C-alpha cells in the first residue's frame, strides 16, 4: 500500500520499501541532496529536516511513518519566504559559520526550528541543540542563532 505524504508542498506517493529512511528517499529518489548523511543512527543531526514543522532526524525515520505528514527540506525553506528560515540563513552568512559545511544544513534546520518555536531563545535553549559539528563551529552557531532570533523578532514587528 502506497504511503502518502507532502514533501516541500508536493504530494508524494511512495510504494517502495516502507522501511526506507526518509534520508535515503530524499537523497536518492527525490534528488534532494542538501540533507546529509553522517551517522545513520540519529546521533549527529546532519540529516535534520522538518516534519510537520518540527526538526526531525531523517536517517532514523522510515518513510512508513510519514503517512499524512508534511516534510520540508532545506531546498524548500531556502527558497521560501519563511521568516525564521531567512533570518537564520542571513545570520549564518553574516557570521561566516560554515567550515567544511557538511553538518551545516542540519544545524540550520535545527536553528530554524528553535527560532520559530522560541523567538527569544535562552543560552540553555541554544545549548539544547544536539547536532554535532566536527569542525567546531559551535561558537559562531550560537552567535548566529542569537542574531537570527533578534532579526526575526524585528522583522516580525515591522
Amino acid at each position: 500500500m502506497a504511503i502518502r505524504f507532502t514533501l516541500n508542498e508536493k504530494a508524494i506517493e511512495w510504494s517502495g520499501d516502507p522501511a526506507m529512511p526518509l534520508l535515503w528517499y530524499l537523497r536518492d529518489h527525490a534528488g534532494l541532496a542538501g540533507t546529509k548523511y553522517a551517522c545513520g543512527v540519529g546521533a549527529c543531526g546532519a540529516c535534520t529536516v522538518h516534519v510537520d514543522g518540527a526538526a526531525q532526524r531523517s536517517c532514523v525515520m522510515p518513510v512508513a511513518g510519514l503517512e499524512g505528514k508534511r516534510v520540508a527540506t532545506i531546498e524548500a525553506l531556502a527558497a521560501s519566504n519563511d521568516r525564521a528560515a531567512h533570518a537564520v540563513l542571513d545570520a549564518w552568512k553574516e557570521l561566516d559559520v560554515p567550515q567544511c559545511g557538511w553538518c551545516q544544513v542540519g544545524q540550520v534546520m535545527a536553528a530554524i526550528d528553535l527560532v520559530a518555536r522560541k523567538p527569544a531563545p535562552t543560552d540553555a535553549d541554544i545549548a539544547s541543540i544536539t547536532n554535532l559539528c566536527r569542525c567546531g563551529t559551535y561558537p559562531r552557531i550560537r552567535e548566529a542563532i542569537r542574531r537570527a532570533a533578534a532579526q526575526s523578532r524585528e522583522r516580525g514587528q515591522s
Partner: protein
Amino acid sequence: MSAVTRRDFLVVTATAAGGLVASAYFPARARAVETATRGASTALGAFVRIEPDGTVVIGARGAEIGQGVITSLPMLIAEELGADWERVRVEQLPLGIEASPNPPGVRPRFGAQGAGGSTNIPEGWNELRQVGAQVRWRLVHAAAQRWGVKPEDVRAEKGSLFVSGGRRTVHFGEVAGDAAKLSPPGGELPLKPASTWRIIGTPQRTVDAAGIISGTTRYGLDVREPGMLTAVVARCPYFGGEIASVDDTKARAMPGVRHIVRLPATPANEPMLHNLAAGVAVVADDTWSALQARNALAIEWKPGPGAKDSTAALEQRCIAATKQPGTHVRNDGDVEAAHAGAKRALDVTYIVPFLAHATMEPQNAFVKLEKDRALVIAPTQSPGQANKVVHELTGIPRLNIEVQLPRAGGGFGRRGETDAISEATLIAKQVKAPVKLMWTRDDDLQNDFYRPFGAHRMRGTLAENGQLASWWHTTVGTPIAWRGRDMEKAPAWMGLVDEDGVPAGLVPNYRSEFSAAEFQRMRGWWRGPVHTFAAFATQSFIDEMAHLAQRDPLEFRLALLGEPRELPYDGHGAKVLDTGRLANVLRIAAEKMDWKQARPAGRGLGIAAHLVFGGYTAHAFEVSVAGGELHIHRCVCAVDVGQPVNPLGIEAQIIGGTLDGISAALHQEITVKDGRIEQSNFDTYRLLAMREAPDVEVHIVPSALAPAGAGEMGTPTAAPALANAIFAATGKRLRRMPFAPQLRG
C-alpha cells in the same frame, strides 16, 4: 582567435570573445612521474579568467576541506591582480596536470593542490601573488598602450585601470583581449607593497557559504551521474584478515541489487597502496538497497595477524619499552649524569590513544571508467595521488584521468589517503558501470589510518636555581611509516617525535629517543600530526616541572625560553624556532586570561604554547570540575601566523582547531579488543557537543612575516593547557587521554 604566450610559468590565452585566460605550470615543483603520458590534459579551468564584460573569475587550486583555502588562495591572486573582491567569482579548479617532456611524465599545471601540513598558504604566498602580478602587468601595459601613456602611470584597482592624475578609466574586460597578447619580461615581477593592500589582511567570508547552507553545494557523496550505481562494502573487521566464505544468496535476491563482488586483501607486509581491507562489495540501484543487502550477507572471516591483539596489551608493551633504551633522535649534553646527581627529579609517563579522523562526510568516491578515460569525483586531500591510484589499478594514462575536487566534508588528514578511491575503482572495474562508493560511519571509524598510539616517558631534573637541568623524553609509539606509500626512507619516528620542539636547545642536557611498537592497524596523519601527539606530553610535563620547582607555570616557561632568538629546528613547516615569538603568544594569552588575578577556590588556570608548522600558538584555560563534570569558564588562544591573509578564516580555524583539541582530549579513543575496533559510531566515539564547547577568544598577533597556515595551529596546545588547568583546579594530573572518564571516575 587566440595567442598563446609562454613566459616563465604563466600561460595566457585570449578567448574568442575577447577575454583573457591565465593558467600556469610550476617547473620548480614538477616531479618526475614514471607514468607514460599520451593524449591531452583533461584538466579545465584557469587561475584567472577575465570576461569582456569585466567579470573576473579566479580559480581556487587547493583541495577545500573546511580549512578555507577556497577563499584565502584566490584572495592572494585577487590582491595582486587589483580585482574587486566583492565582484570576483571563485571557481574550484580540478586537478591540473599536463605532459612533462623531460623527464617524461606529468607535471602539475596549477602547482600544489593537496592539503596537508598547513602548506597551502605558505606555498601560495609568493606563487599565487605572482600569478596576479603577471596578469596585472598585461592589463596595465594594454591600457598604457591604448592611452599612449607610460605603464608606470597606470594602476589597477578594484577591477579597473586608472591613469594617475587623469580621468581615464577602463574596466579589466575592456583591455583583456589586448592584454592577452602582451608578455611581461621573464622572471618574477615586483609585488605590491603591503601598504597598498586592499584584500590581504581583511576579514573575508567563505566564498561558497551560501550554497553550503542552502543545500545546493554538491559534495562527493551528493554526486548523481547517469547510469551510476551505489556501492557499499562489508570489510573484514580484522586487520589483514581475509574472506573465508561468503553466502550472498539472500543479498542477491534483494530488490535493487545489481552486483556482489569481492575486494582482495593486500598481502601481509606489503605496502598498503590501495584498499585497506578484504571485503565484499554490494552494488545496487540506490543506497538503501545496498545497505540492506550488505546486512544480508553471511560472511566468515579469516582473522589476520592481529586477531588476538588489543590496545590494552599495546599499552603495556609501550610502557615496558620506555624502560629500555631507544634510538637517539637528539642527544645534547649528558642526561644520565644529570639524573644521577639530581635532588629534584620527576619520572612520569603519558599515554596518547589511537584517534579516528571521523570526517562528518564519510569516505566516498565516484569513479567512472571508460575505455581509456576515467572520471573521479571525490573528496580528497591528495588529488595527484587520486589520479595515480586510478592509473595504477586500470592502466589508463594519467592525463586521461580527470579528478574533480568537490568541497570535502572535513579532512583532518584522513583524505590524504586514497583507499576509498581505490576501492571504488576496483568495484567499477568489475561491474563495468560508474560507481559511487559510500562508507557508513562504522566503516569510517573502523577502517582508518589512526593517529598513532604512544607512551611518552618523561624524565626531568631541576638545577639548584630551579631551572630545568635535564629533559629526557622517551617515546614509544606505533609508527606512521609502516606499510605506507612512499615510506621506504622515512624514519620510524616521523610524525611522532618533535625532536627540536621546546625545550630542545633550551636545556643543557636533552635527549629525545624513540622505539617503535608493533600493531596491526594503519596509522596516519591527524590534524597537527607530531604536535598533537607530542605536545600533550611536553607541555604537560613542563607544567609538572614548574610545580616541582614551586614556580608559576607561565614564569617558568618564559624563563626557559629566555631572550628572543632563533633556535635551529628541523621539521616540516619551520626552519627555526623563534623563542621571542613563542614567548610573545604566551604573554598575550596570559594577559588576556588575567593570569595573575586570583581565582575563587576550585577554579584553575592552565597554559601551554607550541610551534606548529611555522606558526606559534598559546592556549590558556580557566576551568573547574564539579560532580565529575568539567566546566570551561574561559578559553583564550593567541596565535602568530605571520602575516594574516584572511583574519576571519584564521579565527574560524583557531576556534575549530581548539574545539577539536578539546573534543579529542575529553572524549576520544579508538580501542581494539581481540583484533576488532570497539567503536562504531558517535555514541561510542564522541564528538564535543555544543553545550560542552566554550567560546574561544582568539587573538591574532599583527605581523608582516611570511605567513604560516592556520588550519592545524589551534589543536596541539588545547589538550595540555586544559590538563594543566584541571591540575590547577583539582590537584589531579591527567597523564592520559581521554580526560572525561577520569574526571567522572
